[in-house]
């Protein structure tokens, strides 16, 4: 062992110290970078007894990362559903203000509440059939009910259009992330082959996977050469050496019965009824569930209510031997010339209106509600044949009919036999139940995702104090090396001076 060997060792110590300081600096610099995994320098003894930084290890935790991504995907799906449903629930929400205790309008603007208001208005009209204002009030209540159904239907269309637009944006994001992923993945693969430091590229890759999982649930597999493949949660390949094409055709306008296009990967549908195995999580799955299942089902319920109304207020031929068909009375829809069948009610909620012949605001005569003849000028449809001012037979019939049990189409997903009011209430229950469940699931999944994120951050993130401690140790090592260097130097000087 010579003094010059000591010089070599001290010199390697400075080099190793510098490399470790670089790692500490990088860690400290990235303390708040989301998705950054802290790095550790691996120091080894070299052949002549010095220290070398052999490699830099990235503290990654694939299991926790996968867990965080999966829970983020679940949270995103539930959040998307909850947001859409709460928009729909707005249309049926109770005005919870305790100050409005007067009978009318305390129950918000839901079709159910409006139906109850119509029932009340009819009961009032029945008690004072001569009152023109009671007739007007009953027609106004009917008109509010029709508007409420129109508004509900419009809200469904709006939610579906927004979900479709969100799907477009989501697909665009996925495609863009997949192409970014390609360059990061390529950098990792070629870096590993050449022995370069690939930690930054790996960070980028992980962060892209985390972003992807917001859009759709994904799982990843790393091949022997370091190349990472991405699969959607239904097993469809999204990335393997190269990005797959995620396709989607937006639909501009949604009306009842419009079916939106499915999202495809390499031409195979991954959402909707046409998909053999649809994706289960991520915002994309949430939007698809909202657009293809939940909103259309609520639409079907509104359509059933509209068709039920048109049928219950229909006018029949009052002749002693009736021959004419029953016609839409108080409630009708533009272009409707006969009673709609409950199994073909699609879109009625959007167009239902109060018959212009009975609507004073459109030049109609509100007393036709009492007398009949709303549907047609044909006297066969007049119930009050003598024109008596206090004739209540027809109003009574309408009131009775509203509380009578009728059948509904099973496609609405509610009871098939109920009174119209009962059906409307069941529809509110269905919507609020779905809304409550989605909201609960969203807050639960968000909490889980936060936990998973925090676990991941604790496992792979940077602790400033730990890095500072490392830095102090490095500082001391540096000082010792410098001291060693001056000592060895002094020894050399002594040796040379002695000669």
């Amino acid at each position: 062992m010579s003094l010059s060997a000591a010089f070599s060792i001290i010199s390697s110590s400075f080099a190793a110290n510098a490399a470790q300081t670089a790692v500490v600096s990088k860690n400290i610099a990235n303390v708040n970078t989301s998705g950054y995994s802290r790095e550790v320098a691996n120091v080894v003894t070299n052949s002549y007894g010095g220290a070398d930084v052999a490699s830099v290890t990235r503290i990654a935790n694939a299991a926790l990362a996968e867990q965080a991504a999966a829970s983020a995907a679940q949270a995103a799906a539930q959040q998307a559903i909850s947001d859409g449903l709460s928009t729909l629930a707005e249309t049926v929400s109770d005005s919870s203000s305790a100050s409005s205790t007067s009978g009318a309008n305390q129950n918000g603007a839901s079709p159910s509440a409006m139906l109850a208001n119509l029932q009340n208005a009819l009961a009032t009209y029945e008690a004072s059939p001569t009152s023109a204002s009671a007739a007007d009030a009953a027609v106004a209540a009917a008109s509010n009910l029709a508007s409420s159904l129109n508004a509900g239907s419009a809200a469904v269309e709006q939610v579906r259009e927004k979900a479709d637009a969100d799907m477009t944006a989501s697909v665009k994001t996925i495609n863009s992330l997949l192409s970014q992923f390609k360059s990061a993945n390529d950098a990792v693969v070629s870096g590993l082959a050449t022995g370069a430091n690939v930690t930054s590229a790996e960070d980028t890759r992980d962060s892209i996977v985390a972003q992807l999982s917001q859009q759709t649930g994904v799982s990843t597999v790393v091949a022997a050469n370091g190349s990472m493949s991405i699969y959607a949660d239904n097993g469809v390949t999204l990335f393997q050496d190269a990005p797959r094409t995620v396709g989607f055709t937006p639909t501009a306008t949604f009306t009842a019965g419009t079916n939106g296009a499915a999202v495809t990967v390499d031409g195979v549908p991954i959402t909707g009824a046409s998909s053999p195995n649809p994706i289960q999580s991520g915002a994309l799955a949430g939007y698809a569930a909202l657009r293809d299942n939940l909103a259309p089902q609520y639409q079907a319920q509104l359509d059933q209510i509209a068709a039920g109304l048109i049928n219950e207020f229909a006018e029949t031929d009052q002749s002693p031997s009736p021959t004419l068909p029953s016609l839409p009375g108080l409630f009708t829809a533009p272009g409707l010339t006969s009673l709609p069948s409950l199994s073909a009610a699609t879109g009625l909620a959007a167009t239902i209106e109060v018959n212009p012949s009975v609507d004073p605001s459109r030049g109609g005569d509100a007393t036709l509600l009492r007398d009949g003849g709303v549907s047609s000028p044909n006297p066969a449809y007049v119930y009050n044949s003598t024109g008596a001012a206090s004739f209540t037979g027809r109003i009574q019939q309408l009131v009775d009919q509203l509380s009578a049990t009728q059948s509904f189409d099973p496609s609405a997903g509610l009871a098939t036999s109920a009174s119209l009011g009962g059906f409307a209430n069941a529809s509110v229950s269905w919507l609020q139940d779905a809304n409550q469940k989605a909201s609960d699931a969203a807050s639960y999944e968000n909490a889980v995702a936060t936990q998973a994120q925090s676990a991941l951050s604790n496992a792979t993130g940077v602790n400033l104090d730990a890095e500072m401690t490392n830095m102090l140790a490095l500082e001391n090592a540096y000082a010792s090396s410098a001291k060693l260097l001056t000592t060895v130097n002094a020894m050399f000087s002594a040796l040379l001076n002695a000669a």
Partner: protein
Amino acid sequence: MTMSANFVSTPSLAMSLVAPVQQAQASLATATTEESTGQYADLGLQLGDQAGYELSLKEQVGLLQTLTSANGLVATNMATADAALTAIGSSADTTMQNLAAWTPIGDPGVSLQTMGENALQSLIASSNATSGGGYVFGGINSSLAPLADYFSTPPSAAKTAVDQAFQTAFGVLPSDPAAASISASAIQSFLSGPFAALFSGASWTSDWSSASSTNVSAEIAPGRTAVVSTNVNQPAFQGLAQAYTMLAEFGGSQLGPAAQQTIASQAGSLIATAHASLTNTQAALGATQSAVTDANSAMSSQLTILQKQVDALDSVDQNATAARINSLTTEIQMAYELTARLQQLNLAQYLPVP
């Protein structure tokens, strides 16, 4: 350096209080709303699949309130009808007493005529009583005065029909002096024959009454319909009209005392029969009135129960909410305090500057 369970990354430590504070703030906003309104902030979200049930309870409350206030109108109409029936009854009583006191010896019949005219006018006025813009004795035909004015100019259809019947029977008018020779038995058969026919059937509905024989019915409680009016096409009204017309038309006529006596006694017996029938009508109306009162009190107790059920679903315990607001406020304050402390907990603060 090894990773251990107690390793905490700096961002995770710094953010650890953000989520709880956000949650506490959201809960505080909700609790404040609930404290001020006494109801859940978002009922639909709170009730979920109970929302429809809650709505149906509220709708029942609304319907009962509507029916109760509609019953107010019905009750007013019936009270008006009842008062008019009472007035008609007391006018009949007065006429009966006057008839009992009357003798053909002291009076040539003029007072019979006055008696009849007064009573007929009062009958017509009472029968045309209105309430809430409708005639209470019109049946469902409430927009037309039920009894036509007998004394109108030009002469009413009823008056013309009476004159014609007399003319047909005796060839003269009652005001003709020749009428004095008409015998009591002839007048008796006229009164119970052609004259009586004028006050029933088609003659009544064409000459006297515009009312419908169909009475107004109304829903006085959910699913319970009652007949809530009466009409003038009833024996009581027809009998009284017949008796009073008899007196008004023939009392002051040229008929002889014997005929006058026949008229007076015939009128008296008609009034007595009609009065009994009137009492029945009034009793039936009274029964409906008490049915409405009963329905109202039944609905009122039902309303109390329903309101309790609605409250059980909608209302928050305001004491519990107040306590929650306190603890949330404390939680947020402590979180702020901790955040500030954590900021200080940093090795860099303690390292000497070289």
